[in-house]
């Protein structure tokens, strides 16, 4: 029964080893998805390449459905899986800042690491900028502390919030995702940019 490292109280080194192997899988999957290319990632926002939305939603749904099935078969205790805390203001404000960073840099932190590993120099600079960003955040933390802590809602789950069962919510999410995949492929045809897509 999982989560294994919590239930069986793994020693720290073993948990860190697991982290390393999970990281290998994560980096491999991101690179295989083509996320090591900033122009492909940016294509999401200009319509010529919509890989991002396909990979992102498929991954989220697979993990979501998989965890619920594991829980149904008594193999995973979802109560012991971390649920991100919901700070309304900072989630929205942080998301907006991240969106701006995304379109400027063409990467997000995870994809920049995978791009760095195959030698993209712009990804290295992006990461350098990221480290400066983290440094600035920590130095300015006293000033934005109030924003960061405002409007705390706890570890809120969306199915409880909407009052539907998690399975029904997952189905709704899947239907929305399938519709988005369809629109995405239409967009790819409409905003077709062979000069860029052949390049990446």
């Amino acid at each position, binding site marked *: *029964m999982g989560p294994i490292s919590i239930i069986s109280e793994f020693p720290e080194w073993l948990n860190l080893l697991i982290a390393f192997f999970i990281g290998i899988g994560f980096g491999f999957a991101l690179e295989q998805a083509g996320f090591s290319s900033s122009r492909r990632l940016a294509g999401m926002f200009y319509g010529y390449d919509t890989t991002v939305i396909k990979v992102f939603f498929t991954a989220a749904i697979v993990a979501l459905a998989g965890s619920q099935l594991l829980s149904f078969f008594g193999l995973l205790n979802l109560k012991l899986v971390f649920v991100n805390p919901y700070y309304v203001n900072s989630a929205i404000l942080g998301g907006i800042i991240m969106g701006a960073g995304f379109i400027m840099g063409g990467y997000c932190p995870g994809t920049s690491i995978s791009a760095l590993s195959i030698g993209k120099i712009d990804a290295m600079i992006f990461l350098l900028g990221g480290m400066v960003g983290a440094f600035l955040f920590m130095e300015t933390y006293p000033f934005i502390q109030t924003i960061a802590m405002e409007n705390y809602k706890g570890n809120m789950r969306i199915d409880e919030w909407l009052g539907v069962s998690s399975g029904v919510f997952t189905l709704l999410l899947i239907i929305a995702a*399938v519709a988005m995949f369809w629109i995405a492929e239409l967009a790819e045809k409409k905003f077709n940019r062979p000069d860029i897509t052949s390049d990446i």
Partner: protein
Amino acid sequence: MDARIKYSLLLVGIGIILAFLPFSATDSFRLKSDELLSKSTSAENSLSVDQVARMVNKEDSTMLLIDLREAGQFKECNIPGSINIPFSDLLNPWWEGTFNQKNIKKIFYGNGDQTANCAWSIVTGLGYQNNFVMKGGLNEWFKTVMLSQFRGEKITPLENALYEARFNARKAFTQINSLPDSLKKQYFKAKEIKQLKLDGGCQ
């Protein structure tokens, strides 16, 4: 056939199964019924009031007393070192970190035996470990620890130790519960146990 349609069909199929799952495991007991039954029949998970009194005297840090009565009753009197989780609030996600501590003995009590044993069964059924019940509840505590007097001619050393433990627990109980409310609050704040936090996210 188009890859998109294939994968869409797969996802929708799984989604439909999920939406119609006959029961949601996250809301149900984790243990199987025979496992819970064999735990329920074992006598090891109930403690006598005298055992609890000794732990209170020692200020045992590996145990946590959980008072299941409503807040009003709890405020009136409770065993020193207990926290209040009203029975109706038992499944509040807030308490997950409290229950989910394997190394801490969680001792449930109410006024009688019924609420405490229900709570014990529910918490144990949900998969949390190291749960106990204080046998007889507060009624038994009052009868044995608070009000019993030694009657007899000669006291054996064993009895002497027992009555001394009861006396000390009685003293602590009276002292804490006689405090004015503001001081009591401070006392509980100091007693608040650190909840187990799950690790995750990018923090």
